[in-house]
């Protein structure tokens, strides 16, 4: 008899268990609840997959009815070490998305003008051939950069990069600079890694600059661990201008003026330095303090004690009083937080991802200041502290990896932003309008820039211009505002209808999750035939991996471009690779420990992953920086004057995901040679040499850049406020939850949070309509008066304000029909709703039971682009003025002048100082870059 495996999410209580045992997963019987009191048994296969509704990639377990292969429900996957059998509301709501009566079932091709709402059904063959021939011609003509793939929800690490590398196209664009580029820069400068991985469960102090307990990455897995930490006595400190659910659980909640967070953290750092409540041994070994002294205090003694004295003096200006003034909070509250942090014993787990770092000019310094505090307290990398994500995430490699391209796409990586960790994606329409390039084929993948990005009307103007974008292909499971303007809308599957792998830093371990089309897996088990995933999905819904394989073959049908060979089966020479081939190879060759684990259960690695949907690769991963280098790693290396251990490289070398090409470790003063950090110095860089080398030396150390919405910028008495437009709801996700009825039922209004003192000053009450004006226009919203937001600040949540132009082009569960008009010339736009959300007839009787009506306000349309001059991050917070709605205003109106948005774009662009680094490098090599070219590609001219 086989022993039930011990699953991380399985719990028992007396005779009850929270999940059916694995041994019954191929034949689990449940009675039909709707047939009660009759007992009608149904036989299910329980097949794991991975949630697609946010980036946390929690495990799901699909209940596939053996009779008709319908997915009855999705629960958590108890085998998943990150989510441990649990989900947030959005996970189980996947079933709504599968059964959405309005989903796109067939490929569609535009027949009228872009955005005119006229479509015809097209075969996959025709669509593929059309797209492939365009790409093929672009590649043959040497116009590689005319092809762009723009991704919203990220897919499998490295998968599309692999595809684009085979095409030789530097065309990978993401949404990151409207999301997390601020934090990524602040953290990259310190550590060479771009994401934090906080060990909340073992922390003594948890410091969150976000509403992380209820939303964000990695919401559900982190929330579990934050609560575990709290249960073990950790203190929770939250900085958030809004009384979020997270703030409600805090031991200390500070509601600072937005943009003052770095000042607060630097005041904490200064206090730690002043009182010497710092981990001196850690700092001495791991900070590049020698560079700090040499650069900033060249005349001082170049020793560690002098460094401590000098840095203490350098940060003395960041007093509690200074921070309190910037933050507009009582000085005692800052002192209280500093004391809690000082008491953390090296177990400070801290998290920032978007929040202040994504809101403010200079927001990246918030992350920089946070990691300063982490360093000072010795909380980096250890148990209960904060590590980099690179230690806690596992990226497998596909078969037959292509070499890297050597192109540089300036539409994505422009010269003005050499230190932007990610693509300047939200400036794309402005770049195209400036004539910096054109696009022949533009893929938007689960990406809705018209709705999600700032300045959506400029996106519409650009997406409708065939001279700028030749062909727009929307790969999407659902309708979106952007898909309405596409040339092809190609339906891709939801989480249980596709393949890919995922790995995220949910805790101090590593795992690889497997997303798989559950009906297809069930068909396999039942011995039913299929050709590809389309045969298992509803209609002709496909999955991207198979799409990319097929498209690549069609781009290079005779192999002349050298592309097809990368899409041949590693097991059947000359034949097209299947997803089974691909993942079989990955799991057999690229995941340490998986073949052994599978063999122990008498399975192949692929069978193991299809059974459990996940494999744990490592546990308790700490202090990787201290890992001694092996002899192999040290072979053929030199040590430079900074102690960096390097292997020889050429211009054809490629930097690894993190760090410089060739750099493998660091030699310490005591002679130890360890892995270190993937920064230029392999140390934690308190002085960031990259900033100096790219002409931004005045910001080389952790500092405070006053925000564009700092207190002194806002004339409250004149009716001005700061608008926080980014806060998220735990129950919705960007633009993908519109088709989930469970979620819409619980979240369906969109009020502006306004403090009672501000409401009084503006003479408005709950439910009153207000006009909120930005630099480029205005929108009309409804007020909710609450003490849950600090005075001077108002907030309107992300996730609502969905619309559709034509019937059938959007989810009626969530969006309202609108019309667009040009009141004051073509460059002015007014969006006006023609009616809200209302019950409708469909195959789902629940659609006639809709009892909500508010589609929300699409505020992002009224925001101009605000690229931070250093990080390139869009600075989301808005300086707005509020007034009672005027007689002509209607709820949900948005008015924008796109000429004005172009002006604001140019104002922000003018803040940059375009620069090349040493050897004419376009950006620092150590910083992670999706689809990195060879080192040659980094250089404007080859020195050879």
């Amino acid at each position, binding site marked *: 008899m086989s022993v039930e495996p011990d699953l991380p999410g399985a719990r028992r209580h007396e005779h009850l268990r929270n999940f059916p045992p694995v041994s019954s997963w191929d034949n689990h019987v449940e009675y039909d609840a709707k047939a009660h009191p009759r007992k009608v048994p149904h036989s299910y296969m329980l097949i794991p997959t991975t949630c697609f509704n946010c980036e946390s990639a929690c495990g799901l377990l699909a209940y596939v009815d053996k009779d008709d292969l319908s997915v009855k429900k999705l629960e958590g996957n108890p085998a998943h070490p990150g989510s441990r059998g649990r989900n947030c509301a959005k996970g189980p709501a996947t079933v709504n998305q599968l059964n959405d009566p309005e989903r796109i079932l067939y490929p569609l091709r535009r027949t009228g003008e872009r955005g005119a709402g006229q479509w015809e059904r097209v075969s996959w063959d025709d669509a593929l051939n059309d797209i492939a021939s365009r790409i093929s011609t672009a590649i043959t003509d040497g116009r590689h950069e005319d092809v762009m793939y723009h991704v919203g929800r990220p897919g499998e690490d490295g998968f599309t990069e692999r595809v684009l590398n085979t095409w030789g196209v530097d065309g990978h664009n993401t949404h990151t600079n409207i999301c997390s580029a601020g934090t990524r820069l602040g953290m990259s400068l310190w550590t060479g890694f771009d994401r934090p991985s906080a060990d909340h469960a073992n922390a003594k102090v948890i410091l969150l600059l976000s509403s992380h307990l209820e939303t964000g990455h990695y919401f559900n897995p982190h929330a579990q661990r934050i609560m575990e930490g709290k249960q073990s006595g950790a203190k929770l400190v939250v900085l958030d201008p809004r009384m979020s659910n997270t703030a409600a659980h805090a031991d200390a909640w500070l509601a600072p003026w937005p943009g003052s967070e770095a000042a607060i953290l630097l005041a904490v750092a200064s206090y730690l330095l002043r009182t010497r409540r710092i981990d001196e041994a850690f700092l001495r070994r791991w900070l590049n303090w020698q560079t700090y002294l040499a650069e900033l205090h060249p005349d001082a003694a170049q020793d560690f004690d002098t460094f401590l004295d000098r840095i203490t003096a350098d940060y003395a200006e960041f007093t509690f009083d200074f921070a309190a003034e910037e933050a507009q909070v009582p000085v005692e509250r800052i002192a209280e937080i500093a004391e809690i942090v000082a008491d953390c014993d090296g177990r400070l787990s801290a998290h920032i991802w978007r929040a202040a770092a994504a809101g403010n000019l200079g927001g990246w310094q918030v992350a920089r200041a946070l990691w300063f505090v982490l360093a000072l307290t010795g909380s980096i990398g250890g148990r209960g502290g904060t590590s980099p994500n690179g230690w806690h995430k596992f990226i497998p490699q596909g078969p037959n990896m292509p070499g890297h391209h050597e192109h540089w796409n300036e539409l994505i990586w422009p010269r003005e932003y050499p230190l932007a960790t990610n693509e300047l994606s939200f400036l794309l329409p402005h770049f195209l309008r400036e004539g910096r390039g054109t696009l022949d084929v533009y893929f938007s993948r689960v990406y809705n820039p018209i709705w999600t990005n700032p300045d959506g009307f400029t996106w519409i103007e650009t997406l409708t211009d065939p001279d700028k974008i030749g062909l727009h292909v929307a790969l999407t499971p659902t309708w979106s505002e952007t898909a309405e303007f596409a040339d092809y809308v190609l339906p891709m599957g939801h989480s249980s209808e596709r393949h890919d792998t995922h790995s995220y830093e949910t805790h101090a371990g590593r795992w690889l999750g497997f997303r798989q089309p559950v009906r297809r897996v069930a068909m396999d088990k039942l011995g039913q035939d299929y050709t590809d995933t389309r045969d298992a999905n509803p209609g002709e819904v496909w999955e991207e991996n198979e799409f990319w394989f097929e498209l690549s073959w069609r781009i290079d049908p005779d192999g002349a471009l050298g592309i097809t060979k990368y899409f041949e089966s590693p097991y059947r020479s000359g034949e097209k690779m299947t997803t089974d081939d691909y993942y079989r190879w990955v799991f057999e060759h690229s995941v340490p420990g998986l073949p052994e684990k599978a063999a122990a259960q008498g399975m192949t690695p692929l069978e193991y992953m299809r059974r459990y949907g996940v494999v744990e690769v490592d546990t308790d991963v700490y202090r990787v920086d201290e890992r001694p280098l092996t002899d192999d790693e040290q072979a053929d290396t030199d040590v430079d004057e900074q102690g960096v251990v390097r292997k020889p490289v050429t211009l054809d070398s490629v930097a690894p995901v993190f760090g410089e090409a060739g750099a493998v470790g660091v030699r310490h003063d005591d002679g130890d040679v360890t892995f270190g950090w993937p920064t230029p110095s392999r140390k934690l860089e308190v002085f960031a040499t990259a900033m100096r080398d790219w002409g931004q030396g005045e910001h080389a150390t952790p500092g405070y850049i006053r925000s564009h919405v700092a207190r002194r910028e806002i004339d409250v008495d004149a009716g001005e406020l700061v608008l926080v437009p980014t806060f998220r*709801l735990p*129950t919705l996700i960007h633009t993908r939850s519109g088709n989930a009825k469970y979620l819409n039922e619980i*979240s*369906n*209004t969109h*009020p502006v949070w306004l403090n009672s003192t501000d409401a009084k000053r503006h003479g408005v009450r709950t439910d009153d309509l207000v006009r909120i004006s930005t630099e480029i226009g205005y929108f009309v919203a409804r007020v909710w008066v*609450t*003490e849950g937001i600090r005075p001077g600040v108002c907030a309107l*949540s992300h996730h609502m304000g969905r619309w559709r132009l034509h019937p059938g082009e959007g989810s009626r569960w969530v969006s309202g029909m609108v019309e667009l008009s040009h009141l004051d010339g073509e460059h002015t736009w007014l969006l006006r709703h023609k009616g809200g959300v209302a019950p409708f007839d469909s195959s789902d009787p629940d659609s006639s039971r809709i009892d*909500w009506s508010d589609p929300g306000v699409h505020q992002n349309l009224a925001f101009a682009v605000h690229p931070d001059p250093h990080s390139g991050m869009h600075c989301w917070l808005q300086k707005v003025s509020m007034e009672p709605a005027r007689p002509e205003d209607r709820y949900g109106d948005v008015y924008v002048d796109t000429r004005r948005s172009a002006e604001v774009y140019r104002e922000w662009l003018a803040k940059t100082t375009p620069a090349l680094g040493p050897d004419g490098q376009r950006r620092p090599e150590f910083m992670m870059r999706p689809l990195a070219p060879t080192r040659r590609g980094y250089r404007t001219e080859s020195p050879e």
Partner: protein
Amino acid sequence: MLDPTAAPVGDSYLWARPDEHRREVSRDLPTDPVTQARTTLNTAHPRPWGWRVTTYLWTKAVGAGAMLLAALAHLAGIDLAVVGDVVAPALGVAGIGITGALLVWDLKRPERFLYILLKPNPRSWMFWGAIVLAAGAALFTAWLAAGILGAPDTVYDWLAVPALVAAAMTAGYTGFLFGQAEGRDLWQSPLLFWHLIVQAVMVGAGAMALAGIGAGLDAEATALLLAALTLGTLGHVVMVLFEFLGRHTSKQAATAAHMVTHGRYARLFWTGGVGLAALAAAVAGTAWAAGTLLVAAVAGLLVQAALLIYESVFVRAGQDVPLS
């Protein structure tokens, strides 16, 4: 203990709209002066009991009150003539009949009403209430038959005490039933049983006073009805004031009472519920002093309206304070 009144709903939830009922109710609930806490999401909880319950409280009271007075009169040797022999039992039978119909109608699954008796739960006043109503219906029907057939006095001697008890229980058992509605603290008053009987006397006497016009009642009978009407109505008013303005056993009850006396029901309660009854008491008292049923008939009508209004407030407010 989690106290749902600690965070009343504001004008809006965080991400959804409260149902109109909860929104209105919450306006009467005090917010915590320090936290200003608000409930951020809930589902709608419509009041399960509505006009049918209100109405049957009245129909039952009229019928039971009339029979109570008829039985009392017989025991006291006062002859209420046709009013006692036919009108009162007719009111009693009709009252119970309508009450029963309303009760069944009010069940979620009316077709299953027999389950109350066939699958009895002896701890529930739903079950005992059915027994009481059945007993009342039998006794009142017998009384009515006796009246119509002109039965001898001994029949009434046999029937008087059981009918008195049945009438009292028919009026009062609802006090125990409401008492079992846990969490509905406004209804948990130990006086409710007695109050319901007083109400029954008030409206029963009112109805009989109306019927008594032209029935040729003697002075003693007239005085009995006028006294019952006056004192019943006065008693009701005094008990209402005592119940609503006095101390409450719980925050929930106090909150509901406050909603009645100062909140959304205040105007209806003070004018329709209390004002009308007080006016009726004054008119009835005047009629009693003058010994005239004609004037008392006005009071007899007023008390019916006053009780219906009062019960509608009592039933609604009892269910308004949120339990979650």
